[in-house]
């Protein structure tokens, strides 16, 4: 009797565990969900409010599990065909982000699902007003993920999520993948929410965030990476272009999978493939309070493309291109530093470097850093470029042809 009772009890426990712990009571089928692929924040007409725009991947009905990946309407064909949109745009004006999401949920037939959000973009105007209060919810919420990249849009962010791109039907997925690719070049290109939070907390650091721009009109719009937005605390104060951004990522080092172009006058042009790019920063504090920063840069490259340089022999040419590349790195970083000094923004994070290497002195310097000491930073760039391989051909094709 006892044994039978125990068995019944066991079965009963298993059934209870299965049904209760599985959480079936709040299950949501796929067609009851809005799968958010991008979140856009903008200033609303009412200055106290913000516009929350959510981009949802439009998964065609009856497309089955395989259709889910084809990022929207393009895969459905048939009746809906070209008329169906790749994305659905949901929009709300509200006091805060969560408030906006609530409005959207209330006014729609489905529930929003944030786990697959690929990117969060912020309109320039809102970025200039300050964004910290809108990030709180994103950090707090269990469903929003910390590794989702952030970006500022030069213009309004909602335009980007609505855009019909010639590159990809879904701009959210496109941007997510674009930043993932860029992060393979340098981690600095991809600013995840957690990175931005770290920069905000960091001592005397000017946070940066990639900036994108929408160009073209109607059906042929394109998204371009146009540089970095520079923040003071949580307010955007300016931006640097892609060329200046190069100086920044070179100063941080660890650049991979990319090229470096070297120019001399008009006709001479070489492209070097970067195999490894290492930067070693060193700080020394001088007695008069000046800060000297030394960047030892070691670059290993291979020749990628050669144009011009007709007056050089191959052996000299390698030496020459090497010197040009070293010059270019030095100039580039110094120019970017000049821009940083103009903006009074330490986005090179030299302040953090000093606080790590010279913590005692940093306590003294901290107050004077942003407005005074950073302006006087002396930067010394020691670039060493090695050109290891010349690719499949030894000579320049152009030169061979002349013989």
């Amino acid at each position, binding site marked *: 009797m006892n044994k039978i009772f125990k068995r019944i009890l066991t079965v009963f*426990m298993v059934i*209870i*565990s299965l049904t*209760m*712990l599985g*959480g079936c009571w*709040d299950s949501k089928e796929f067609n009851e969900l809005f799968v958010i692929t991008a979140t856009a924040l903008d200033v609303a007409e009412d200055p106290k409010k913000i516009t929350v725009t959510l981009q949802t991947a439009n998964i065609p009905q009856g497309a089955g599990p395989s259709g889910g990946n084809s990022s929207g309407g393009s895969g459905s064909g048939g009746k809906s065909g070209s008329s169906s949109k790749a994305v659905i745009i949901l929009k709300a004006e509200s006091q805060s982000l969560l408030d906006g999401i609530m409005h959207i949920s209330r006014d729609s037939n489905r529930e929003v699902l944030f786990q697959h959000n690929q990117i969060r973009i912020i309109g320039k105007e809102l970025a200039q007003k300050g964004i910290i209060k809108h990030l709180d919810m994103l*950090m707090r919420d*269990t*469903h929003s*993920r*910390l*590794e989702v990249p952030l970006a500022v849009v030069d213009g309004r962010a909602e335009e980007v999520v609505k855009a019909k791109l010639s590159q990809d039907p879904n701009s959210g997925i496109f941007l997510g993948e674009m930043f*993932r690719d860029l992060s393979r070049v340098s981690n600095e290109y991809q600013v995840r929410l*957690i990175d931005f*939070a*770290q920069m905000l*907390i*960091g001592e005397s650091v000017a946070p940066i965030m990639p900036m994108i721009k929408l160009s073209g009109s109607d059906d042929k719009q394109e998204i371009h990476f146009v540089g970095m937005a520079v923040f003071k605390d949580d307010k955007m104060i300016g931006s640097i272009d892609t060329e200046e951004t190069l100086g920044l990522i070179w100063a941080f080092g660890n650049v991979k999978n990319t090229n470096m172009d070297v120019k001399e006058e008009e006709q001479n042009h070489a492209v070097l493939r970067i195999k490894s790019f290492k930067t070693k920063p060193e700080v020394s504090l001088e007695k008069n309070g000046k800060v000297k920063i030394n960047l030892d840069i070691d670059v290993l490259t291979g020749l990628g493309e050669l144009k011009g340089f007709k007056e050089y022999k191959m052996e000299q040419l390698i030496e020459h291109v090497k010197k040009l590349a070293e010059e270019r790195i030095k100039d580039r970083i110094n120019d970017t530093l000049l821009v940083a000094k103009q903006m009074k923004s330490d986005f090179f994070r030299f302040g953090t470097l000093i*606080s*790590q*290497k010279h*913590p005692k002195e*940093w306590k003294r310097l901290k107050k004077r850093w942003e407005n005074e000491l950073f302006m006087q930073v002396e930067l010394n760039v020691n670039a060493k470029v090695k050109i290891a391989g010349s690719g499949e051909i030894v000579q320049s094709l152009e030169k061979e042809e002349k013989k």
Partner: protein
Amino acid sequence: MIIDKSHVSGTRFMFTIAFYLQSSALLTSFISGITEQESWIPAIFGILLSLPIIYMFRTFMVKFPDKNFLQVLEMTYGRVLGKIMGLGYIGFFINLTSLNLLDLGEFTKLAILPLTPQLLITLLCILVCVWAVRHGFNVVSRYGSIFTLIEFAIVITSLILLSNQIEFSNLIPVFQLPLIKYVQTTHIVTVIPLSELVVFLMITPCVKNISKQQATKYWFLGALMGFIVLMLTLLRDITVLGNSLHLFSLPGMVSLRLVNLGEALSRIEIIFAVGLTLLLFFKITILLYVSTIAVAQLFGTTQYKNIALIIGVFVVFYAPTLYPNSVAHTNSARTIEPFVHGLFEIVLPLLTFIIAAILKLPKDKKSMLKQEA
């Protein structure tokens, strides 16, 4: 009087200690909130400070191998005072069980099952714990070694998976905070996870056939395995999260969520979460077992099986009433709890240790653990 007649080997005892400490590694926010990036420094101090305390626990085991701690208290202070102290310890053990159950509930809610009622999770968990406790310590500790290995595997895998995000520069600068913060944090580390090993003084009578040297070896090796995991977790979280470490209530979970190796190996924190829940479950089982034995000891009964169920149900309903919210929980863990815990984990055992030495206890020297010949 021996309440639980189960016998376990020394090795198993060692692994039980190891995973007991390891399961505390999940909850590092108590210290990371105060000393932020420098939390690894007080952690090292805490480990060093806990070594003499663990030695004291070991000596209790050597001197009174077949007595649990409540029996030792009665021997030292007499029947009345010993019982009163025992009552205090029962309160402490039950409180500890509730706190860990609360942690398990909150962790599960945050990481795995956000919409499932917390009561259901804790109730089902405690029912399984009661089931294990009813079968004695032999069953409770059976999977200790496997779980220790699982925890090691979790920590090492996570280190490998996060290797592209680890920045060692986050470990410097050092000693930038006011001294009092290091003292506070060292106190917390010593008392909350490490000296909680006092609960094992209730278990020692189950460990059979070991010598004095073996007792030392098992206590310290077990603790060492716990220390390693605690330090690795802390270092991982600091190097990955850097200056944002103190923002999070579960830093370990946050750094695991960041795992992203080539897009394919990402969003796999659920695997870790399940492993970590498993460890917390095990810790609760041990604590429930200890509370049960303590209550049985106080009332002089060997029928502990039904007591387990009563305490279990009590704990389920007591745990949610402990704190109004998790902020209060963390706050209390930083300010009040360390002192309460310190009383039961360090002050009273030390006092007992000294008085027992003055009274030349135990009188029956034959029962003491012998040196190996």
